[in-house]
């Protein structure tokens, strides 16, 4: 069947990217094959493993279950956009410090899911973290250190959130900064 290509424009990790794609192209292929962002992995055919998780307009989604054309006009954050060696995201730091990975195949998806979770709930309980990670499968770690990594990140993030609040409160009082 003849099918027309469609224009898709997505802001990926802060950079606007446009391409003509087949409507059937999955977002994960757009990212990996189209843009060379191979940090987003593909681990299954059944939308279950979560290795392909990215943030779509700030929410964790499985990019193997979203058409690129559905993401047209949206913001996408992949693991490449999270941080770099000099400036790790608290979640990346948590995985480093708490040894949250072994083979690393699931890690990008797990980290993006964790970032999505912490956006929705900055102070999750251990149970909430485990529930929040239901959509990712890890065949290596047994999840213990992944949970510790997310707890580490949550603590770091609420710490800096606290600082920001203190700073903001200082501004409001009109007494100037520190």
């Amino acid at each position, binding site marked *: *069947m003849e*099918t*027309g290509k*469609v224009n898709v424009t997505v802001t990926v990790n802060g950079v606007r990217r446009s391409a003509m794609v*087949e*409507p*059937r*192209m*999955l977002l994960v*292929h757009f990212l990996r094959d189209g843009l060379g962002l191979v940090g987003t992995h593909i681990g299954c*055919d*059944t*939308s*279950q493993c*979560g290795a392909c*998780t990215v943030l*779509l307009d700030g*929410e*964790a*989604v*499985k990019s*193997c*279950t*979203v*058409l690129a*054309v*559905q993401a047209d006009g949206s913001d996408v954050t992949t693991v490449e956009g999270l941080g770099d060696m000099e400036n790790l995201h608290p979640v990346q730091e948590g995985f480093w410090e708490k040894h949250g990975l072994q083979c690393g195949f699931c890690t990008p998806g797990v980290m993006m*899911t964790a970032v*999505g*979770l912490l956006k*929705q709930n900055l102070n999750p309980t251990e149970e909430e973290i485990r529930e*929040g990670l*239901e*959509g*990712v499968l890890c065949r290596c770690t047994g999840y213990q250190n992944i949970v510790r990594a997310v707890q580490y990140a949550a603590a770091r993030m609420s710490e800096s959130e606290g600082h920001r609040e203190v700073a903001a409160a200082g501004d409001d009082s009109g007494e100037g900064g520190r």
Partner: protein
Amino acid sequence: MIPSAFDYTRATSVEEAVKLLQAAGGEAKLLAGGHSLLPMMKIKLTSPGKLIDIGRIKELSGIRKEGNRLVVGALTTHRQVAADPLVRKYAPVLAEAASQIGDIQVRNRGTVGGNLAHADPASDLPAVALALEAEFEVQGPDGKETLDAGGFFLGPLITALPENSILTSVSFAIPPEGAKSTYLKYPHPASGYAVVGVAAVVSTGPDGMVNDARIGITGVADTAYRAEEAERALVGKKLSEQTILEVAALASEGQEMASDLFASAEYRRHLTRVYTIRALKRLLI
């Protein structure tokens, strides 16, 4: 793994989507959150020639209270439903069920309308739609109509949705003040879908006797159903452990249980009784 090629159109209004459906003459499928359709297309269980994306029609999203009903737009996501203050206050059983669908990523994309229109026999929301006597607002070539949840689910992936029509919103009856409700599911260990799911809504009169009971059950049969025998047996009795044991035995009465590699019909009948007991026991406190 990618879907077969298809034509894609993004509809900007319900009217436009209906026209596109008509023009496609049965070739097209609607695309909402894509979390039932795309997994099926990826493994080629279905290969529609055309997709009509309704995902950006603003009027299809949102939750509002209208009298004693809660109206949920078809495109409202599971996550929005689970977190919504109106739902949590007036129909907590709906929030409870929505928060148990799949995982965070699925709940961020999947929609209430897509879940119900898809009518997967293992979906969670059909049980709640039945227990909250939902009404489905539908728009098609001949205008709008309202369908009862009771007659909506006809078979696996088969509904009473008329041809070329779109489910625009679902209105759930708010249980009477003081009613107790819960949704309890036994999730399939791999897929997370319901092997059995029981939605129970029970009201008690001033005399301490049950005066209204609605039990929706999903996962075990070809479609979700209301356990009418069990409901009838509850009314007029005091909700006690003894009563619960008696009525739960009726929860699969008159239903043919589904059977597959994971759970035989006999096991599903057993699970239906056990999960009905557990669900109703939660209402004791």
